């Protein structure tokens, strides 16, 4: 069939490639790109030229230690936060108005104030209640800045994650609940087997953002003397007065964030492959 058609009707030739003319936009584009590459290239060149093997030998192991502390801190906070976010999200969705209002107040409080203020409140505030904390045996916990940071971070991310979860659960159509009920599932079964799997797919992207937000936000623990990656960087700078200490930290943070973003993108693609129609 196609052969006959092609014989009688010549297939149209593809249009000739448009000759892109040199105009203002193109000039701006090249200038912008040149500036970007110039800046980034200049900084990279500086890092290469200023390579100081003594400095690197001295501080690289410390950066590595700091990196481990950063990752440990973020992972611990995220896990505790996730565990705490579930009851908060449930409370937000509760039909009881008082429970809902309490959960909303919690979420609003932690999302409306800076993480730095929360960390200060926990770290410096705990010192004030030392006798009380000692009498209940919690002082050993709050004496350590790392613990205080995890405590504040977990409370903070729990508020954010609760909102993510609530939005995701609400995005699942009401008919799903009704269908589960019609099948004779209890509410818990329906939630666990029908609602949550669908909600988590919706929540996937915001969860990824929350991880990155937490990783970036964790840099502030350096201010309360935790020697995470940022803390080690600050210490290295205050000793060497060498600006490349900060640049190396920037490189490490950028690599981490981009890696997580890529992993998350792949994970999302894999987990939503049943929803795509083209594949």
């Amino acid at each position, binding site marked *: 069939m196609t052969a006959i058609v092609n014989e009688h009707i010549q297939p149209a030739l593809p249009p000739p490639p448009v000759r892109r003319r040199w105009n203002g936009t193109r000039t701006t584009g090249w200038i*912008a790109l040149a500036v970007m590459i110039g800046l980034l290239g200049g900084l990279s060149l500086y890092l290469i030229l200023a390579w100081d093997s003594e400095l690197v030998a001295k501080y690289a192991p410390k950066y590595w230690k700091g990196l481990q502390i950063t990752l440990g801190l973020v992972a611990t906070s995220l896990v505790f936060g996730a565990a705490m976010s579930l009851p908060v999200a449930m409370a937000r969705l509760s039909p009881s108005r008082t429970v809902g209002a309490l959960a909303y107040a919690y979420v609003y409080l932690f999302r409306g104030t800076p993480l730095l*203020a929360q960390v200060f*409140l926990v770290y*410096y505030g705990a010192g*004030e209640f030392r006798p009380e904390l000692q009498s209940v045996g919690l002082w050993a916990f709050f004496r350590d800045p790392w613990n205080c940071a995890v405590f504040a971070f977990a409370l903070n991310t729990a508020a954010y994650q609760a909102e993510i979860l609530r939005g995701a659960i609400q995005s699942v159509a009401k008919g799903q609940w009704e269908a589960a009920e019609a099948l004779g599932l209890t509410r818990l079964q329906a939630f666990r087997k029908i609602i949550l799997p669908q909600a988590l797919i919706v929540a996937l992207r915001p969860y990824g953002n929350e991880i990155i937000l937490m990783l970036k936000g964790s*840099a502030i623990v350096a201010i309360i003397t935790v020697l995470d990656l940022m803390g080690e960087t600050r210490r290295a700078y205050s000793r060497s007065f060498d600006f490349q200490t900060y640049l190396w930290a920037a490189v490490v943070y950028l690599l981490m964030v*981009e890696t997580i973003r890529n992993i998350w993108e792949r994970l999302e693609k894999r987990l939503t492959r049943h929803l795509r129609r083209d594949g």
Partner: protein
Amino acid sequence: MDEMLALLSLGDTGWGDEIASGVGVTISLALATLPLGLLIGFFVALAKQSEEQTLRLAGNIYTTVFRGLPELLTLFLVYFGAQIGIRQLLLAMGSETTIEINSFLAGMVALGLVFSSFSSEVFLSAFRAIPRGQYEGGYAIGLSRFQTMRLIILPQLIRIALPGLSNLWMILLKDTALVSVIGLSDIIRQTGIAARVTKEAFLFFGVACLLYLALAILSSIAIGAINHWAAKGDAPR
């Protein structure tokens, strides 16, 4: 209770006036950063939706870098980097003077860079929500590219981008807390000093949290009003 009120009162004995000046600094820093971040963000978004590949690439590099760095690190990079850069420049010119970078300016630039990289994404998705026909309609009635942008695209763009931008404003308001680290006397720094002097850390940092909360509530009222104003042009339902 009376002791607490005395600590928070105005005048020589209380810390109320110091903290109030901190609130002023926080608000003015956020307000000064906003136009800078919006303007840069808008142009970066323009670059990212351009047909020119090089412009898109440049815009994407910009966003990737400033979205991926911790805000605190960006602040230090700007603050110390500018100081070192200017000193080197002055040395090259044969001058030995050292210049202190104004921490307000450094904070404004750093937060502006972060804000613009996020707002460019908001603007970009708003640009994509406007159909091509709107541009073509503009050109068809004889408007220039600039006029089409100003009279047809921008009014719609602002309306679509408003929810995303108000989110970013809330984030900006909280991020200003970081400039206390480079010595700007904002809410956190002033309450921190008060906490150290009076040994009432919980009270003063609690007050700081409440102040930020109050600012957030005030902002959401203002944003509600702006939303109302922006929705005026919508067809009545």
